[in-house]
């Protein structure tokens, strides 16, 4: 057993149970196989000897039919239990991956991996079926059936048993020898095979490009040539790989001949009775059958094992600093006291340094910032300077490597993150739309909100007009397979979420770009409306929000550029002078005034 198989057994009780059931069923089947051989041999030997009275053979035949019917029942039960074990095992693994995804830091990992995860959870795990349904029961049968058959043969006719005992181990031994010899050659071929096999997908994916440059006809020939090269390489591998199945089959069938011929010769000399001889003939192939089946099932199981490895790799993947949830719940102070005072709560960063995994430079370096209750702070500065990281700190998505994040004087690390987040409304740069209705998307933070409340929130976010134009208005299903919304519309749905949640603290990441002038004006209007009466930290990528901030903090290469001459908290009524905004040299290029474009 490979380590990953041992781990599957260890972590999935359903598979251990499956092994137990399989063993019991294999034992029962082995008993029935012996019974069937004995009964059939008896009825045939009797018929051969005398014929005559047909009552006795009839009884034996009925018994034989009963034994075979029982075997059929066991086959059905074995399939049923195996399929169920596979279904349960896949469900357990799916749920564990889902749970792991939940514990991973919510900051999005590379987009590439989402597709992988989804494929793994839906189609990918099905590769476990051949392993659980085919391979595992066959393995238990391999242990149980030959022993039972050989045991019976020893009792009935030990010379034939001896032949089986000597030849049976040859199968795994030869198999291993051939396997060892071929493994290296196969491994060498594997890279080539994978490359040639991937060529078709590569060309098909690139077909729009090939057409754009008029090269699509040329590639028709190449597709054929590469497929042919793939065939030749595959056949080189298979010629060797199939040697093991050749050895297996030959040893198994030759052994039957090795048993049958001496039995025949002994009968000829009258040293054996026909009934025993026939029993031996019927039973001998059964001893080899599980090993042959295991050989076939082994090939099909490889993919299942590979999938299990990928699942475990995903489960073991630690994301380090994101795992705030790793803090033990007992250490967390209750946040409830805070909840009622969140409107009057100070937010503070105290000498915070943040490292993102895989990056050498810290995302934030000794950053300090105090936000007074009701204050509106705008964060400006070039992309990648750490503005979004700052919001993530206040959300508890990121834990500082050093320094403290304080909420009303309490270290955020000691608060229950979920309880704290009930006090925060977050509007990200690219909000995710869930595969649910528009209304349910807005209800994200308050699932029990009434339709009227949802509409009110949408109106406040300037989202009501376009929502009502959607095919099913508020019931239109969004998400990957649902209606597509433009960036500005998505942003307004997210603002509606925040309006509905009505939390005292607002953390907002302005969309980087790509809004048409109309959307931009609507989004700005709604954002300003949302900030009113709340403590707000907003990342401003463009200038339109800046006049509405009390204070502008420029973030540059992980450091905060606080104007020391300005007090931490400003009266809400004082708009920040635009002059305070000094774009950094690396900032996103100056936006052109949109009005100038209109002719």
């Amino acid at each position: 057993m490979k380590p990953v198989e041992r781990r599957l057994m260890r972590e999935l009780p359903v598979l251990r149970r499956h092994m137990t059931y399989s063993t019991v069923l294999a034992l029962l089947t082995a008993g029935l196989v012996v019974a069937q051989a004995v009964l059939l041999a008896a009825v045939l030997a009797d018929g051969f000897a005398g014929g005559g009275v047909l009552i006795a053979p009839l009884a034996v035949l009925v018994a034989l039919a009963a034994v075979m019917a029982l075997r059929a029942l066991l086959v059905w039960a074995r399939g049923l239990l195996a399929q169920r074990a596979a279904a349960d095992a896949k469900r357990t693994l799916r749920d564990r991956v889902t749970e792991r995804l939940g514990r991973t830091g919510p900051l999005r990992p590379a987009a590439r991996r989402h597709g992988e995860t989804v494929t793994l959870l839906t189609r990918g795990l099905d590769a476990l079926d051949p392993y659980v349904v085919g391979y595992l029961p066959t393995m238990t049968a391999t242990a149980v059936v030959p022993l039972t058959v050989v045991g019976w043969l020893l009792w009935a006719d030990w010379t034939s048993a001896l032949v089986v005992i000597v030849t049976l181990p040859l199968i795994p031994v030869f198999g291993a020898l051939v396997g060892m010899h071929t493994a290296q050659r196969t491994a060498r071929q594997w890279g080539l095979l994978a490359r040639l096999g991937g060529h078709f997908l590569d060309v098909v994916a690139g077909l729009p490009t090939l057409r754009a440059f008029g090269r699509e006809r040329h590639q028709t020939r190449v597709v054929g040539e590469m497929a042919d090269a793939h065939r030749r390489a595959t056949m080189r591998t298979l010629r060797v790989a199939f040697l093991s199945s050749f050895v297996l089959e030959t040893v198994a069938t030759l052994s039957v001949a090795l048993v049958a011929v001496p039995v025949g010769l002994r009968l000829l000399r009258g040293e054996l009775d026909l009934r025993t001889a026939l029993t031996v003939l019927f039973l001998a192939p059964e001893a080899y059958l599980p090993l042959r089946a295991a050989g076939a099932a082994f090939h099909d199981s490889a993919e299942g094992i590979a999938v299990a490895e990928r699942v475990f790799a995903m489960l073991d993947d630690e994301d380090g600093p994101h795992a705030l949830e790793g803090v033990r719940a007992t250490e967390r102070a209750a946040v409830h006291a805070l909840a009622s005072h969140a409107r009057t709560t100070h937010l503070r960063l105290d000498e915070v340094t943040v490292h993102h995994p895989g990056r050498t430079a810290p995302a934030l370096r000794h950053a300090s910032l105090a936000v007074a209750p009701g204050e509106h702070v705008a964060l400006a500065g070039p992309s990648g300077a750490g503005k979004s990281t700052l919001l993530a700190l206040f959300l508890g998505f990121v834990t500082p490597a050093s320094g403290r994040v304080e909420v009303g004087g309490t270290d955020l690390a000691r608060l229950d993150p979920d309880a704290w987040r009930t006090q925060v409304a977050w509007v990200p740069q690219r909000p995710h739309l869930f595969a649910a209705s528009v209304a349910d998307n807005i209800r994200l933070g308050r699932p029990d909100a009434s339709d009227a409340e949802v509409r009110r929130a949408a109106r406040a976010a300037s989202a009501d007009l376009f929502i009502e134009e959607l095919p099913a208005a508020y019931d239109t299903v969004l998400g990957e397979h649902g209606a597509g919304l433009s960036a500005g519309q998505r942003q307004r749905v997210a603002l509606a979420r925040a309006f509905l949640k009505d939390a005292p603290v607002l953390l907002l990441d302005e969309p980087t770009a790509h809004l048409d002038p109309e959307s931009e004006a609507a989004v700005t209007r709604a954002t300003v409306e949302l900030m009113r009466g709340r403590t707000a930290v907003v990342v401003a990528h463009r200038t339109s929000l800046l006049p509405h901030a009390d204070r502008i903090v420029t973030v540059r290469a992980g450091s905060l550029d606080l104007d020391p001459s300005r007090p931490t908290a400003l009266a809400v009524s004082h708009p920040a002078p635009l002059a305070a905004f000094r774009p950094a040299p690396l900032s996103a290029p100056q936006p052109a005034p949109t009005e100038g474009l209109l002719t």
Partner: protein
Amino acid sequence: MTTTPSLVAAPAPQRGSRPTLRLLRHLLPYWRRLLPAALASAGSDLAAAALMATAAWLITRAAEQPPLASVSVAIVAVRALALGRGALRYADRLLGHDGVLRAVAGFRTRVYEALVPLAPAGTPAFRSGDLLTRLVDDVDAAQDLLLRVLIPAAAATAVAVAATGAATALLPQAGVLLGLLLAVAGLLAPALVLALSRRTGPAEKAARSELAALTVDVTQGAADLAAYGARGRAEERVRGASARIAALERRGALTTSLASAVVLLLQAGALVGVTWLALRAHAAGTLAAVHLTVLAVLVLVAFDALAPLPGAARRLAEVRASARRLADLFDARPPVTDPPAPVPLPATGPLGVDITGLRVRHRPDGPPALDGVTLRLQPGRRTVLLGASGSGKSTLIAALMRYVPYEAGSIRVGGRELRDCAGADVRRAITGMTQDAHVFHATIRANLLLARPDARDADLREAARRARLLDWIESLPDRWDTVLGEDGATMSGGQRGRLLLARALLADPPVLVLDEPTEGLDPDTAAAVLTDILTATRGRTTLLVTHDRSCLTEADDIVTLDDGRIRSVREVDA
């Protein structure tokens, strides 16, 4: 925010008309290769059956204690069959795989040819990597249809027929009974499997696609869920979908192994029935004692040969789904077909493009994606096309490159109406960097030469220099021969963008289109790449589609597209 023209394939005219048979028709031309494999497979199974039957005869005959000479032929036969079985099996495996891989290689070419006129707007596959991967897997399903369905079925039939024939020769009524029960088992077991998959298939498919959507939500929406305290609920929904799939699979389990059990039950019936008939015939003196055992063994081996059928039927059910998708592909109508007598189009020199009153619809019954678009791309000037996602920018490019048809208005290039020209000629005149531009798993050189196969090294260097990629290429250990990963996975986003730009510059078409060349780049890199693009394209007829406004100072003309209509045009004085 990608909005590739979302043209849905035209509804297949003969949907559901036996897709598996149609798939088979594509593979049948290879029968010369496949027949030996089927024969070897049948031969191997027949050898196994004959081995048991001969051994049974040998033993029973020996029990009559005749002289050794009368069984010596049987002894030799048993040994030969035992050896032959393994050899035939090996031949079956090799011939089968070789023939099938040949057939699949040919089929791939057919699928590729069918895909050519559909790329990129004629099938949804080009909009999703997952669909594309599945399409390629579907093509390989052809392999399973031959190797795991047809060849095993042929072998099983051969053994069943041979056993029935032999039994009939020995005792006609036993042969009839055996043949009858074999036929029932051989037809009933696969039919059971297929009927079952037809019943549970749709429910399982729906549950799976629900799970996929919910999984996307908990992975891509993880932060939103956490911030709004909705993670628990979302995970609960995923667990719910997961449980529904498991429940459906558990229910399916009740019936999946039923087919194998049915084969065994029929085997029991046949064994008891044939043995009973044989015993009676023997008692009546019409059947030799030796043949008593041979008949019983024939029943056993014939039904053993049917054992792979339920598994083959399960594969067939899966292949059927693949075959249906492939049939849809072959039936899909290309969105644009060439006119019978295309008008030639000049392919050199800077050309102008005159677009007037252009209307494009993605679906005949849908709203227009472009409506009344009038725009002039002047020779030698760089036009920047701005607009929000979904405003129709990429649709305009697709119409210019003749990937999608236009139902009203005109596009004239060098005085010729695009509708009257061959698509390939149009793309010689108007091409560049499309939004779905692909980096092939090949060398940098091959990736660039694609745009102009006869380009010299100096041309490559010049294009790379202008795309500001030359320093990077020359810093690589293998330089121009560096193999790029699958879709440029080994390069950074900025390098990928620059490579695609270099390729477009190397193509040097009379009208250069660049569709969102900075998509997916971080703002700083995007700004650098855009600036380079505008510098590199000075003096060429260029249409640059972007939603990034940082490049406007460099542009000659600026056009804004909004909801399928031209919103504003600004001509910048040169």
